[in-house]
């Protein structure tokens, strides 16, 4: 495991806090953690803002008002306006829609695909080599580079960003699920299940998959964060979501062009991005502490 071939695995950072290990269940452990509550609360607000964007935003995010071009933060426009007179706050809220939707979409698809591939290659040695060598090959690319390469061919659009990032993040999940599958497969209860005549399919779905679920959930949280950063990076480079769509990455790209005159254009979307990614990472740490206390003292 330690000497695996060229990997770009998502680093599973050590846990925030160490020490005492409460005995009660994961839900209580999670709710007893203030960092977890703060992160979950912030993300909940972000999701609500994204869902109800049309009701919450003071302006239409695409409405051009040449009379108020490049205005700094004010009572009318709390986060200022951009070089075409569009309201920055409204664009950030709409941008959150895109970021969260892409982050969630990528994670769900990559988790399903990665779990399927990981389960199969962990369970059937014949499938293992071709699948995992392919995953190794995909992990041999620096992740953002692979995403850029795929976007270069597919062309900018939100759907293509999801497709590209699924390719990038599926291998990490496949590798994770494979390793828990390899361990669980050896357990006596799997042998008993086989002895009573259960099919492979039910063994995989009812016994092996649930055993890897908690680490999958933790990893999934980090994948959401990584996918959001990657989408912003791609859009920033002009290879992500269509440049006219308000997204944090697109706003940062527009903002950098006028950085000398209008700091707010780049600063506010950047802060939105950092807070979202930060709380997702903290949530992932907290979930790991709650679901898998053994993984803490890695």
């Amino acid at each position, binding site marked *: 495991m330690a000497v695996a071939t060229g990997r770009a695995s998502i680093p599973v950072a050590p846990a925030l806090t160490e020490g005492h290990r409460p005995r009660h269940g994961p839900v209580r452990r999670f709710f007893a953690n203030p960092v977890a509550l703060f992160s979950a609360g912030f993300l909940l607000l972000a999701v609500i803002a994204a869902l109800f964007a049309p009701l919450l935003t003071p302006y239409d995010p695409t409405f051009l008002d040449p009379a108020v071009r490049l205005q700094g933060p004010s009572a009318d426009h709390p986060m200022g306006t951009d070089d075409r007179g569009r309201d920055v706050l409204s664009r950030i809220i709409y941008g959150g829609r895109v970021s969260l939707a892409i982050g969630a979409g990528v994670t769900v698809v990559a988790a399903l695909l990665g779990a399927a591939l990981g389960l199969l290659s962990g369970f059937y040695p014949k499938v293992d080599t071709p699948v995992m060598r392919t995953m190794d090959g995909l992990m041999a690319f*620096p992740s953002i580079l*692979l995403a850029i390469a795929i976007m270069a061919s597919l062309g900018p659009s939100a759907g293509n960003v999801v497709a590209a990032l699924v390719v990038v993040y599926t291998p990490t999940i496949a590798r994770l699920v494979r390793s828990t599958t390899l361990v669980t497969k050896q357990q006596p209860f799997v042998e008993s299940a086989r002895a009573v005549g259960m099919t492979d399919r039910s063994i995989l779905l009812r016994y092996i998959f649930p055993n890897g679920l908690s680490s999958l959930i933790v990893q999934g949280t980090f994948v959401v964060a990584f996918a959001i950063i990657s989408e912003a990076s791609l859009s920033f480079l002009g290879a992500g979501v269509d440049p006219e769509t308000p997204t944090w990455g697109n706003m940062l790209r527009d903002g950098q062009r006028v950085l000398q005159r209008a700091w707010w254009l780049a600063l506010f979307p*950047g802060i939105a991005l950092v807070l979202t990614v930060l709380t997702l990472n903290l949530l992932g740490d907290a979930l790991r502490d709650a679901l898998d206390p053994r993984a803490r003292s890695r």
Partner: protein
Amino acid sequence: MTAYILRRLVLLVPVLLVVGVVVFALVHLTPGDPAAVILGDRATTEDIQRLRGQLGLNDPLPVQFGRWFGGVLRLDFGESIFLGESVTAALRDRVQPTLLLTLYALSIQLLIGVPAGVLAAVRHDSPLDRVLTVVAISGAAIPTFFLGILLILLFAVQLRWLPSGGYVAPTEDLGAHVQGMLLPAFALGFSAAGLLARLVRSSMLDVLREDYVRTAFAKGLPEKLVVVRHALRNALIPALTVIGTSVGALLGGAVVTETVFTIPGMGRLVVQSIARRDYPVIQGAIMAIAVTYVLVNLLVDLLYVYTDPRVRLGGD
């Protein structure tokens, strides 16, 4: 050890083959005829046919792949469609900024990450530990390009201490080179430093609990000596593998950082080539970076096995 190295080299073959297939497939992922896409709407049928011939698109796919991959093995990535030179020449001109940026960022990652991790572990559960942990976690959450923009805003726009972009070769003017690379290298190295610090901290905490460290303390050796000479050596071994993967993240991050700071490296070339639909350049640059990454990882893994005799023949 020799057997292990040989085994690893053999394992490299399928990985490089998959990398090759993926990079090759990029052109064919494009919806429609790649030649027509490259030339745009106003191209005539003859132009498209000529480019198809030039790119060898009329041959069967396996033939195309064989020809392309054969070229790659000879470091021949074909001709750029836009630049009027070979891809290899274009990459050669731009490899220096990218490699130096990655190296500087790696140095910053090590210079910040290792001491911060050691300090946090030695002062475990102190306010210093908490502050360092918070900084490390936040650092990992700041995308390189946004940190770059923040640094430009502060040091170039507000304070006017450093240039906001551009590149001067070290052979041309070393002082200007250092000034120009300071912000990009920091932007790129800082978030990586956060991850490294957290890893060094946790592996250092493990090592500090070992018997031999307690013995060293019991013998009355000074803390500094125990930490640096006895504990750090073993704590750095797991950090080594992270440095391997970091190089990948840094090489990828360099692509973005070069765009923020307008550094004429391979990454900026890739980004510019996307708009120009210059596929041979995109393929060549990505192939070159991926192969570099694979080789660095191999090197790090070998170093890992070499430094830690406990890890031997640990196949996947």
